[in-house]
C-alpha cells in the first residue's frame, strides 16, 4: 500500500486536481457557452506568473498570502480575459478560435521575454524560487470549491442563458438575453478558473517556463473537455484525472525499451475515443450530486 501513497502518486493526483480546475473553466467557456477558445493555456500562464510573482515578492511562506496570491492570479487572468473578450466576442466560432490562438501566441512571446521588464519572471530561462505551497488540502480544496461554484453557476438562470446562447445565439437574443454580456461573462469566469489553476500549478512544481503555456497546452485542456463530454462537469473531472493518470500510467504499461511509444499510443487512443464516442465519454450524463433540478 505504501507504494501507492508515495509522494509521486500524491503529486500526480494534485496535478490532476489543478488540471481539473482549468478544464472546468474551459468547460464553461466552450462546453456551456459554446465559445471556441484555443488560448486557455495563456490565461493559465497569466495566473501562474502573477501568483508566483506576488507570492515570491511579498508572500514568503504564509498560507493566507498563498490563498490571496492564487486568487489574484485568477483575477489577473479574468481582467485580461475581459479586455480580450471585449473586441473578440463578436467573432464566430472558428475565427474566435484563431483569434484566441493568436492571443496565446502573443502571450507566449510575452512570457519568453518577460525578463526584459521584470527580471524576476525569468523569461525563457524560467522562473525559479517559487515556494512549494500547493499541498493536497489546497489542491483538493480548490477543486471541490470550483466544482461547487461551477455547478451552481450552471444550474442558475445565468447558466441556462449560457446554454441557450450555445444552442442558438439568435433565438437567445430574441428571448431577451444580452448575448454579448453573457458571452463576455462566461469567457471571463472560465479564464478566471484557468488563472487560479495556474497559480496552484506554479506552487506545485515551483518552476515556470514559457513552454508550459504554449498552444499545445491549450490543446491538451481542450481535449480533456471534449473527451469528457461538452457541457458535462462529471465528464470534465473524469477526463482530467484520466488524462493525467494515463500519461503517467503509460510509463508502467510500456516495457522499458519502448518508453518512446508513449506519445505514439496516446494519439491513437485519442483518435479511437473520438471515433467510438464522439459525444465524449459521458455524453450528457452527470453524476448525481452535480445534477441540478429540472431540465438539463
Amino acid at each position, binding site marked *: 500500500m505504501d507504494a501507492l501513497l508515495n509522494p509521486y502518486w500524491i503529486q500526480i493526483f494534485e496535478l490532476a486536481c489543478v488540471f481539473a480546475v482549468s478544464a472546468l473553466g474551459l468547460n464553461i467557456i466552450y462546453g456551456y457557452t459554446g465559445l471556441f477558445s484555443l488560448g486557455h493555456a495563456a490565461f493559465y500562464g497569466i495566473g501562474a506568473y502573477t501568483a508566483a510573482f506576488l507570492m515570491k515578492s511579498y508572500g514568503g511562506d504564509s498560507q493566507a498570502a498563498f490563498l490571496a496570491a492564487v486568487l489574484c492570479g485568477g483575477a489577473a487572468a479574468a481582467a485580461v480575459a475581459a479586455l480580450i473578450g471585449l473586441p473578440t466576442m463578436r467573432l464566430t466560432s472558428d*475565427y474566435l478560435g*484563431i483569434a484566441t*490562438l493568436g492571443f496565446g501566441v502573443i502571450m507566449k512571446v510575452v512570457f519568453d521575454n518577460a525578463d526584459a521588464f521584470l527580471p524576476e519572471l525569468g523569461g525563457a530561462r524560467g522562473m525559479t524560487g517559487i515556494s512549494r505551497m500547493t499541498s493536497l488540502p489546497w489542491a483538493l480544496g480548490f477543486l471541490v470549491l470550483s466544482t461547487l461554484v461551477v455547478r451552481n453557476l450552471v444550474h442558475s438562470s445565468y447558466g441556462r442563458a449560457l446554454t441557450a446562447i450555445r444552442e442558438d445565439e*439568435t433565438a437567445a437574443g430574441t428571448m431577451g438575453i444580452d448575448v454579448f454580456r453573457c458571452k463576455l461573462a462566461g469567457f471571463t469566469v472560465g479564464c478566471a478558473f484557468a488563472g487560479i489553476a495556474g497559480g496552484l500549478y506554479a506552487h506545485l512544481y515551483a518552476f515556470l517556463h514559457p513552454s508550459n503555456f504554449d498552444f499545445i497546452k491549450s490543446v491538451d485542456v481542450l481535449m480533456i473537455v471534449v473527451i469528457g463530454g*461538452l457541457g458535462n462537469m462529471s465528464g470534465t473531472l473524469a477526463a482530467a484525472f484520466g488524462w493525467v493518470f494515463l500519461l503517467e500510467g503509460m510509463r508502467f504499461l510500456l516495457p522499458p525499451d519502448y518508453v518512446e511509444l508513449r506519445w505514439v499510443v496516446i494519439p491513437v487512443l*485519442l*483518435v479511437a475515443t473520438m*471515433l467510438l464516442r464522439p459525444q465524449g465519454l459521458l455524453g450528457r450524463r452527470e453524476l448525481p450530486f452535480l445534477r441540478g433540478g429540472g431540465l438539463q
Partner: protein
Amino acid sequence: MDYFLQQTINGLQIGFVYALIALGYTMVYGVVRLINFAHGDVFMVGAFIGLYAIDRGRLPLPVVFAAAIVGCALLAVVIERVAYRPLRDAPKIAVLITAIGVSFFLEYFTSLNQVFGPNYYSFPRPFEVVSWEIGEVTVTNIQAIIFAVTLSCLVALQYVVYRTKAGKAMRAVSHDHVAAGLMGVNVNLVITFTFGLGAALAGAGGVLYGIAYPQVNTFMGFVPGLKAFTAAVLGGIGSIPGAVLGALIMGQAETMTSAYLSSTYRDGIAFLILILVLLWRPTGIMGSPRADKV
C-alpha cells in the same frame, strides 16, 4: 531603399511557401468546414519523401515533386477515410480533436527510429545556388523556383476549381453538401478528392521547403502549418486567392518586423495583425460573410 527591397523579397519567399500550405487548409475547410490540423504534418511527410527521393533514389527533380505529390495525396486520402469520414455527422469538435490526434500521431510515429527517425536530417540540394544581383538586391534561383512553382500551382488550382467539373462539384459541396448530394454529386468522392488535392499542394510545398531550408525533422510541419492556417484565416478561409493574399501578408509582416523592429516580437506582431484584421472583417479579408438562417 535597397534594404527595404531586399527584405520585401525575403518576405515574398517565406510568404509563397506559406501560401502553398495555406491553399490546402483553405480548400479542405471550404468543403468540409474542418481545420485539418494534420495538414502541416502531411507537408512534413512530403519533405521527407523528397529527402529519400533525392538522397537514396537520386531521382530527377520533376520526379521528386511527383513522388511527393502522389505520396501525400495518398496519405491524405487514407487519413480522410480512416479518421474523418466516420465522423462526418458527429459534432464538429470531435473531428477537430481527431485531426489533432492524427497530427500528434504523425509527428511522434515518424520520429521513431524504425520510421524516419528523430534527427535533423540535411536535405540534399539537387542543384547549386545561383544568385543574381539586380541593382543592390540579391535574388537566388531558389527564390525564383519557389515563386514559379507556387504561381503555377495557384493557376492550376484556379483552373481546376473554376473550369472543371470536379471543381464545380467541389464548389457545390462547399455551398451546400446536402443539396449537392441530391443533385447527383458523389459527395464522398468530392471530399476525398479535395483532401487529396490539398495534400498534393502540401507535398510540393514540402519539397520546396526542403530545397530552400535544407533541414528536415518530423516536427517541422507544426509551426509552418499553424502560420499557414492563420494566413488562410486572415485572407478569408474558404477563399483560394484569400489564402495566398493572407500568406503573403503574413510573410511580409514577419519579415518587416524582424527587419525594422526586433525579431523578438515577430510572431506577436503577425498575430496582432491577424486579430486586428478579424476585428475589422470578421470573416477575413476576402471571406464571404455567412448568413445564419434562423
